């Protein structure tokens, strides 16, 4: 009978506990007693509302199991006064995902909203009367659910505003195809896919994730933090080999990587994994350092992830940049690698060695021993050819490693000389020194 119309901004900001500004509510006019019940076509509309709704519908077409989109739809309906639509959406969702706690919380609010004010998620007098009897544990659980709702909603709203080129991923090789990019602060995992045309790629989906209990970069074993840096998925562990808390399985990543080990970081077992039975999702910061997805999302993502190939770039905050900046960064690093190749081919050892950073290391060398060895080998060369292909370029977030800028390049190298031939995949860590990128680490 009563249709509330609340501006989209306001309705969404309610979840961030902003002060509730004046509500713009409009009563249905009793205009025609006979057409009293047009519940499904109730009054509110508005461009912002339908734009966001369209976006959610699109998400659901692309990924029908996008239960987050369904939840957000219900929130949108709820906050624009379409209570019956919201309830329908939620009931549908709960039928499909009977362990989605957040959906139940919202449903509780929704049922009561017909009778009382609900400003913040789970802030009804009914819940307020139940909670104190339950202890801090449940109070915290409620806060976690609020936090989860806020992050899921923020992701939707911020996605519209932000620039779209991630400084963390500058190139993906032909064999790699997909890359995962994680934003710890937004609790979000983005999936990027290489376009068949080659040089560019596109964002194909993003998911809510759970990360380490504590914020900040991982440094030592047991610090409950999720590491930040460029990692690669190493294997797949099926659920029958794992305790149930890992859900439908796990993809370990190579933490600690070459740089982490070099910097003395400790710990192990950083995985991307699923969610325990009985839960749809977990609170935003709840793991011991792992990245946790819902089972449904991990299942959808599973076929995209190739052990040994798929990069996982973990950041505190992804650096989204405009196309020009992104392209410039990409060209600079690719050019640095190309210069290294040319100077190597040129047979001038000095030029070649000028591409290596003072603090360089490899599995068995430092810069000094590496230089000595290269000079020795060069004596017997009359001809060399170096061909590089399948390049992926991944960049550490700024401020991760003592403000050093670091990039990881994975490439295929085909080497031929008068006395030697080799074919291999290599991983280079580059660092930016005086405006030029130098090799910090080289290894298979």
């Amino acid at each position, binding site marked *: *009978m*009563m249709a509330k119309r609340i501006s989209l901004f306001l309705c969404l900001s309610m979840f961030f506990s902003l002060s509730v500004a*004046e*509500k713009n*509510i*409009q*009563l*249905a*006019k*009793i*205009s*025609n*007693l*006979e*057409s*009293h*019940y*047009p*519940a*499904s076509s109730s009054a509110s509309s508005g461009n912002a509302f339908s734009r966001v709704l369209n976006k959610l519908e699109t998400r659901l077409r692309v990924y029908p199991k996008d239960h987050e989109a369904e939840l957000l739809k219900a929130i949108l309906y709820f906050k624009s006064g379409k209570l019956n639509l919201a309830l329908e959406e939620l009931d549908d969702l709960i039928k499909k995902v009977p362990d989605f*706690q*957040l*959906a*139940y*919380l919202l*449903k*509780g*609010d929704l*049922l*009561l909203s*017909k*009778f009382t004010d609900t400003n913040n998620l*789970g802030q*009804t007098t*009914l*819940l307020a009367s*139940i909670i104190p009897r*339950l202890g801090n544990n*449940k109070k915290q*659980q*409620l806060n976690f*659910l609020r936090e989860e709702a806020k992050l899921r909603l923020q992701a939707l709203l911020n996605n519209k505003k932000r620039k779209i080129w991630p400084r963390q991923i500058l190139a993906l090789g032909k064999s790699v195809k997909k890359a995962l990019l994680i934003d710890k602060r937004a609790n979000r995992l983005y999936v990027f896919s290489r376009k068949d045309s080659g040089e560019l790629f596109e964002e194909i989906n993003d998911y809510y994730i759970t990360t380490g209990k504590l914020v900040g970069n991982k440094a030592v074993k047991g610090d409950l933090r999720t590491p930040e840096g460029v990692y690669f998925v190493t294997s797949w562990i099926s659920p029958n080999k794992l305790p149930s808390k890992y859900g439908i399985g796990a993809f370990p990543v190579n933490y600690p990587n070459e740089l982490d080990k070099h910097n003395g970081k400790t710990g192990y077992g950083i995985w991307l994994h699923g969610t325990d039975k009985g839960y749809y999702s977990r609170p935003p910061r709840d793991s011991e350092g792992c990245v946790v997805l819902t089972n449904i999302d991990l299942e959808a993502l599973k076929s995209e992830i190739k052990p040994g190939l798929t990069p996982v770039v973990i950041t505190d905050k992804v650096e989204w940049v405009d196309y020009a900046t992104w392209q410039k960064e990409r060209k600079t690093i690719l050019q640095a690698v190309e210069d290294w190749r040319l100077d190597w081919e040129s047979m001038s050892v000095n030029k070649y060695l000028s591409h290596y950073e003072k603090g360089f290391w490899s599995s068995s060398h430092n810069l000094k021993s590496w230089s000595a060895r290269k000079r020795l080998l060069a004596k017997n060369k009359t001809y060399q050819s170096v061909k590089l292909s399948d390049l992926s370029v991944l960049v550490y977030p700024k401020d991760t490693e003592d403000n050093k800028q670091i990039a990881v390049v994975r490439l295929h190298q085909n080497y031929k000389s008068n006395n030697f031939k080799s074919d291999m995949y290599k991983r280079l860590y580059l660092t930016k020194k005086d405006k030029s990128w130098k090799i910090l680490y080289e290894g298979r």
Partner: protein
Amino acid sequence: MLRNAVWVVVLGSIFLSINVATAANRDELAKKFSEAQRLTSVDDIPQAIRIYQSIIRANPQLPEAYNNLAALYLKQKNTKQAKQILEKGLLAHKGYGALYESLTAINVAMARDAYSKALQIDLKPADISIPSLALMNKPPVLKKRTIVIADKGIQKVKAAPSSEKLKKQVIVTNPTPPATKKLENAAPIEKTLQAWSAAWSAQAVDMYLSFYHEQYKPSNGLSHKGWIQSRRLRLKKPKWIKISLSDFDVKQQTNKQAVVNFKQRYQSNSFHDVSTKQMILLYTKDGWRIFREKSL
């Protein structure tokens, strides 16, 4: 299911209750109402508010006045007062007040259940108890003429339903009406059809249409879309409709399909008849839905 049944009862009662005034103050009321609406349209809100307030003082059981007054308070950004006046309106009518409270009780119980799942706590399921009300001691005074408040003001209804019929309608406003009790024991199919007829009686078209299967084919050869349009017109046209069903005879029934015959009594301000209907119902994820319908 229970929830739906309650809504049907609520809606039914709201639509069926016809606000009554004596012939003496009828004209005055009509004048006041249209004056208030005129003042609203020229944005003289304070004066319009005063008129609605005086209408309410004289006719405390007129939901339209409460609603429109609340709308004016909202225009003045006075949400609190709007809310209060709506609540007052609900409570002014004993039947609505009781329904409102009973509905609140059910919603609270459902919300408790949802919260217990959200936070994984073991809450005892709440006892929903709805107090049983005695039949309202005094059905609204029924004269030969009644007034329906509508959009443009007040319209006269020539032939009001007889007081006998209205009395029946008033009974529905009791939160535990005999009809509901009977429904709870009835077979799901009969329950569905009773709810269907209640929606029809309430002229709640969307709800009425929701009882039909998406592949419902009308027997007169209309397309589904054309049929929906014609039903919308037909249901809305009469001033009031009253449907009662009886003599249910389930001819055959499986888990998925049922054929049922029943007697349908149709009354409206302009027409009435009694017919025997046969329906084929299909069972869907939303319950039984009407697949075919014909008069025998």
